[in-house]
């Protein structure tokens, strides 16, 4: 099976040749084991051992290659803790006290630190809200990506350099050679988030967690990053967990939505189902907020069209 970065590379190379080819050939998009879950979260409970109480009261979802699951909720709802549990990076004295998490067939409770290090980056990877704080300001950004491929993929320096540039191109940075040699302060927030995504996918993970990864960006840049994630998902079969306080951001990209509140999953289901037939009052509130203060009321005509399309599909 081709690795993610190879797939990204071949796609990027192909892009430069002809776009017409791209639509025809899709067999490589879905790996052979497309239906086998890459991440299974089953009734996960997380407790603060110092305070002695449970914070997350049972979260379940399954992620297969190319699938995208969204988690929506306000700050403190437990969405970030759930993600951190899947990455094995819960803060001190937080523990998974119930349920199980399976990562590419491995129960994470049995993982040794060495095994975790091998899985992180190579199987599961993540990007967070403030990209600048995850990059070293005194090292050129390209070298930081090259380091990931050298360590994780065992590539030689020159090869790693080439691969890093290819990755920067794959995240649609306009001048990858130039960006490679730049420092964090020379790049905008949107560019930094792309650099971070490039680093996150450098070791060909099968799952990418994006936790409020677009929250701090301008809307147009946010849309660019979301489009990029959609693109990676389609081209490489990358599975996504998208965490946001904004239901619309999640709705744009995800097949399934979990709505969390105070550690509880109050609603879960296919995105369209949740948007069109919300059951829980909190979900209705999130939708009402958008209808009152978003663009939705002005785009009612298009919304009606979308609803009609849903009816047709059903």
């Amino acid at each position: 099976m081709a690795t993610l970065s190879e797939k990204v590379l071949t796609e990027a190379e192909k892009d430069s040749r002809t776009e017409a080819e791209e639509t025809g050939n899709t067999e490589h998009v879905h790996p052979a084991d497309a239906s086998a879950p890459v991440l299974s979260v089953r009734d996960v409970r997380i407790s603060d051992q110092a305070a002695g109480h449970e914070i997350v009261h049972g979260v379940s979802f399954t992620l297969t290659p190319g699938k995208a699951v969204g988690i929506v909720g306000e700050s403190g709802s437990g969405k970030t803790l759930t993600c951190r549990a899947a990455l094995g990076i819960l803060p001190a004295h937080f523990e998974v006290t119930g349920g199980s998490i399976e990562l590419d067939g491995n129960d994470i409770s049995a993982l040794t630190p060495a095994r975790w290090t091998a899985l992180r980056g190579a199987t599961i990877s993540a990007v967070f809200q403030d990209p600048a704080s995850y990059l070293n300001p005194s090292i050129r950004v390209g070298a930081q990506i090259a380091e990931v491929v050298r360590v994780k993929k065992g590539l030689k320096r020159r090869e790693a350099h080439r691969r890093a540039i290819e990755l920067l191109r794959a995240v649609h940075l306009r001048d990858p050679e130039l960006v490679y040699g730049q420092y964090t302060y020379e790049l905008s927030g949107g560019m930094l988030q792309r650099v971070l995504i490039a680093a996150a996918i450098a070791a060909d993970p099968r799952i990418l967690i994006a936790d409020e990864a677009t929250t701090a960006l301008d809307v147009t840049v946010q849309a660019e990053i979301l489009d990029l994630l959609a693109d990676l998902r389609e081209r490489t079969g990358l599975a996504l967990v998208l965490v946001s306080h904004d239901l619309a951001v999640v709705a744009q990209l995800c097949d399934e939505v979990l709505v969390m509140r105070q550690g509880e999953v109050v609603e879960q289901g296919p995105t369209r189902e949740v948007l069109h037939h919300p059951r829980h009052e909190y979900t209705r509130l999130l939708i009402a907020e958008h209808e009152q203060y978003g663009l939705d009321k002005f785009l009612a005509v298009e919304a009606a069209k979308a609803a009609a399309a849903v009816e047709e599909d059903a």
Partner: protein
Amino acid sequence: MSTDPSQKAAGPVLEVRDLEVHYGPRRRRRRALHGVSLSVAPGETVGIIGETGSGKSTLARAALGLVRASAGSIVIGGEDVSAYGHRSWRALRRRGVIQYVFQDPLRSLDPDLTIEASLAEPLLIQGVSRQEAATRVRAFLSRVRLSDDLLDRLPGELSGGQRQRVAVARALVTEPRLVILDEPVSALDSANRVQILQILKELRADGVALVFISHDLGSVAGVADRIAVLYRGELVEAGTARDVISEPRHPYTRLLVRSAPTLHSAPADRAEREALRALLHA
């Protein structure tokens, strides 16, 4: 809201014409605003939308006299303030006819002053009696849905949403005719955002004119009567909120509308965004 009758002119509360603002030394001057004209009628809410670096904060600062325009005119409540120097601007701001709220309330509230002292300060400067100031402070605190218990707290002891509501109350105590809000909800979570937007809607109902600056079209769409779009220092589009959002003309506005997260985004939007990006970068 009652205002001094002498201030009640029929014309616009703010009129900006052909505004130019430059930054930097003469040799390497960078243009921040170019030929911007904008008029705000009494009681009207005008949203100004633009990306980082589009000049929207510069426009706010120019209208407050915090940045000097290199050309063009600014008229506030019928008074041409274009030629005002530092002192005249300060006097104008002290009169409290025009007020402002910035994104980060921690930076606009003195960290060592209690909420009561912060709110009363602009009134005391105007010569209002302490007793009268105390009454007004309480009235405005309840208008932003905060309890009197907060009066003896320091800004650092409040949550971000509470602080921003204090900043709004502080802007209101002088009963201004115009409030300029620069990204007032950008740092807030959705519950606090909705609360501030609700307060802004009530202000509009009271006849206070608002200039609401934001990068988030969604926040502005629910509140503004008219929307003006700034792009690279120029006003590229203006109209009623409905027209700008449902029939955007400039490619940047179209990209903005197509980029704003909505609950009913269509897959086709992605291709359209791609085409618009290519157009804008060409």
